[in-house]
């Protein structure tokens, strides 16, 4: 399997096939990230698509390191831009859970538990958990992406993780 940096270099020289390989490799991560942040799945996929198109335009500026983190940072910025264009944030509806394509009942229930638990977190905490725990950004990468101080990111992640575990444990018992 070709490395991200090789594919990115080929994509930067205009090879669409190389970029398509990167889209296939990371579509799940980017769509997962945007679905955890946005209110609706359709809106999240629009943001994910915009993120990939921005990545295509800026692929020449990728200088190595984790391609996933680079891409997720772009996706997070696209989410912020999309949110600025919308009316003020409203609370998530309980019915707006992420429904994955995996239809196995146990898996679905697990995913819904995770989504439900995630959506109970305060927004900044949720953002930090999504970026660091779900998307694999380091604390310092998340601090750069969000503009939060490093200590704040660590604190949000630790509290968010603790809250998620508590929620998931409570749902397991119930």
């Amino acid at each position, binding site marked *: 399997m070709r490395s991200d940096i090789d594919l990115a270099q080929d994509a930067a020289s*205009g090879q*669409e096939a190389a*970029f*398509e390989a990167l*889209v*296939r490799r990371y*579509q*799940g*991560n980017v*769509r*997962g990230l945007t*679905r955890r942040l946005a209110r609706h799945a359709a809106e999240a*996929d629009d943001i*994910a*698509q915009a993120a*990939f*198109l921005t990545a*295509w335009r*800026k692929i*020449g*500026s990728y200088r190595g390191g984790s391609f996933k983190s680079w891409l997720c940072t772009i996706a997070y910025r696209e989410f912020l831009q999309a949110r600025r264009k919308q009316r003020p944030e409203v609370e998530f509806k309980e019915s707006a859970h*992420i429904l*994955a*394509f*995996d239809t196995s009942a146990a*898996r679905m229930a*697990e*995913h819904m538990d*995770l989504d439900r638990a995630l959506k109970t977190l305060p927004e900044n905490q949720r953002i930090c958990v999504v970026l*660091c*725990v*779900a*998307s*694999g950004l*380091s*604390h310092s990468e998340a601090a750069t992406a969000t503009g939060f101080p490093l200590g704040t990111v*660590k604190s949000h*992640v*630790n509290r968010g*993780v603790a809250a*998620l*575990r508590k929620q998931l444990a409570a749902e397991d018992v119930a």
Partner: protein
Amino acid sequence: MPTDENYHDLTALFEAQDEALQSDVFVEHVMQPVRKHSRWRAPLLFGAGGLGVGAALSQMGGLFEAVNVRAASLSQSIEQVRATPLDSFATEPLWLGAILVVIVSCVAIVATERA
């Protein structure tokens, strides 16, 4: 304080969700505008460049004639400019101006391409 390493279990759950989101339809949605953009970009750039080169070449004959006609007065003007004390720019102001224009143009092109 705990480190990044203490939530592998949750990361695994999120990764399982992400795996379930693989979709050829989504990839096609992303790649359609990419292909469209690529299809037009090269012909547009090369076309515009070719037109520019063509226009420049077509003017070369006229330029040589004009230079020949005005060579004497041009030399005189250049000599006058050189003779005028203009601090550090007194040596080659025309060249400095031309270089500045080229640099600004290059920077503008690079900035536009990266934007």
